[in-house]
């Protein structure tokens, strides 16, 4: 792992105003989809992002891809700012793989057109030049060359996901953001696709941001893991640190939900009570307090991300005073 971050996210925010009324739009609240998220991504690593639905992971993906502009904060790819109006040359460096293999491919295009689309957008290449790029990639993702003239509906979910992966690889990006890429697949196929991700990473030197709600999958693929809740980072650590010593109550609850292969093992499942609070009226202070089994009075003040170990930070008042995560960033002059 390099020490140069290829992606820097600093205090990124994405707020959506909620308005009512047709003539006079009254602002009745704000959805803070991403609320003050900061982290660095280093070349060659896989950062797993985990959280429940509505925690902001998809919005974060959109911000990183420059599909939407941040309401605050900054995102930089190799030093250059990431924005919806960023140059095409930057866009080819980050690609995305989507969750639903059934809707992420245009049903009216054959596989060749789908996979070649990034080439059509970014370059003008002859047929042979395109083939030179596309054919080896088809092999790498495990699809036969004959698949190129078929249509998406002729393939299974797992195969369609491979098509999506092929499309993402065609411009030879550095960074690939994977938004729940295996959630829609059968468990047996999931393993195959995850293995594909791993082998591609090795062959092509890729860096991944891997988003999922499934702790088991995240554990399998990630080097580092970031836990999100209602748009904020709850905990961020290396895989080993997180699984060895999760400090945030939310992370602990997520861990306890992973099915364990030994049925005789004691069930120490932490069941969270209550529902996710409405994102429009997020409570002041720690977003998790309404469901936290260890909530205190103090939690009405928002806890900062504090260091609890090497590269391990958690945002919870239960954590001993340590250096704040954000302070480290600010001190590095970024």
């Amino acid at each position, binding site marked *: 792992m390099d020490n140069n971050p290829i992606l820097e996210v600093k205090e990124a925010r994405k707020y959506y105003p909620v308005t009512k009324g047709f003539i006079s739009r009254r602002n009745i609240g704000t959805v803070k989809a991403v609320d003050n998220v900061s982290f660095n991504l280093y070349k060659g690593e896989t950062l797993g992002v985990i959280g429940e639905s509505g925690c902001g992971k998809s919005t974060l993906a959109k911000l990183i891809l420059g599909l939407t502009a941040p309401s605050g904060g900054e995102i930089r790819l190799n030093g250059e700012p990431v924005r919806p109006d960023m140059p095409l040359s930057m866009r080819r460096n980050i*690609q995305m793989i989507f969750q639903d293999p059934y809707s*992420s491919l245009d049903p009216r295009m054959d596989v060749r057109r789908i996979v070649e*689309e990034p080439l059509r*957008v970014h370059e003008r290449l002859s047929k042979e030049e395109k083939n030179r790029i596309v054919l080896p990639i088809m092999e790498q993702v495990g699809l036969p060359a004959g698949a190129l003239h078929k249509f998406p509906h002729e393939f299974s979910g797992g195969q369609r996901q491979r098509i999506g992966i092929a499309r993402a690889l065609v411009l030879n990006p550095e960074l690939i953001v994977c938004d729940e890429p295996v959630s829609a697949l059968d468990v047996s196929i999931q393993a195959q696709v995850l293995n594909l991700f791993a082998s591609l990473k090795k062959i092509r030197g890729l860096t991944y941001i891997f988003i999922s709600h499934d702790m088991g999958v995240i554990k399998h693929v990630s080097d580092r893991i970031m836990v999100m809740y209602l748009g904020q980072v709850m905990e961020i650590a290396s895989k080993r640190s997180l699984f060895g010593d999760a400090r945030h109550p939310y992370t602990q609850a997520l861990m306890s939900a992973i099915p364990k292969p030994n049925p005789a093992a004691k069930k120490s499942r932490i069941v969270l009570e209550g529902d996710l609070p409405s994102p429009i009226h997020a409570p002041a202070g720690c977003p998790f307090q309404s469901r936290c089994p260890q909530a205190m009075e103090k939690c009405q003040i928002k806890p900062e991300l504090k260091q609890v170990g090497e590269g391990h930070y958690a945002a919870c008042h239960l954590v001993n005073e340590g250096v704040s995560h954000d302070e480290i960033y600010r001190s590095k002059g970024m």
Partner: protein
Amino acid sequence: MKIPPFILFLMITFGILATVSMLAPVLFPIDLSDTELTARFKPPRLFDPESDFLFGTDSLGRDVGIRLLYATRTSLIIAFLGMVLATIFGLIVGVLSGLNGGVTDHVLSFITDTQLSVPTTFIGIICATMMGSDALTVIIVIGVTGWPGFARLVRSQVIQLKEAKFVESSRSIGASKTRIFFEHILTNIASPLIVYATMNLSSFILLESALSYIGLGIQPPETTLGVMVSDGRNYLLQSWWMAVIPSVLIVLLILQISLIGDWLRDKLDPKLKNKT
């Protein structure tokens, strides 16, 4: 694509009918204003085996069969051209409405809905009063009455497609809005649009016939199926075939096209079932 035998039969019969009628000026070149007063009111061969005329003659002695072909030809051409007009206009409005949203959408949707609430015959009547009754007017009437349906369909398709994941993924690759529109949105609208156009073709034929019947469409000596029925209305007692035969043909055409259109819709886009 597997076509059930009945639909195939319909397609073939319609194809033959359409082709032969299109070729009428070549196969049976006549002057439509010719009259043959000695041969008036001759019955069809079915009822008078000695009749020279397969379908009889009308009040001016003209061969009903041959006029039928010319009439079908004109009816089909007008309905088709009107459909093209409606499709183009509906496509433009629907795309503008769906892509832009906001005020544009509100205004255009309002116009679309308003137009839908005016009976089509009245639009025809107004246009005929103002612009005179001829082929062009009828085509315009069909275009004007037909476009709201298309616009609605296109609009809802565009709105759905805008949010489709594959559109988002194209955007993430960096595709421009224009490229996305032509490569993704248009290609995905094409098939429901074609189905809808086919299904509506029959109602356009109907509209033309109705307008011509009341005298506000094509004027003699040009003839369409509606004109022929109108001619025959006054002679129902002595030569009922004048009115009945073109009527049967109208029903036949509408039936064929409707059934083919229904099948096409079920085959290609079952979701459209609720929009008709």
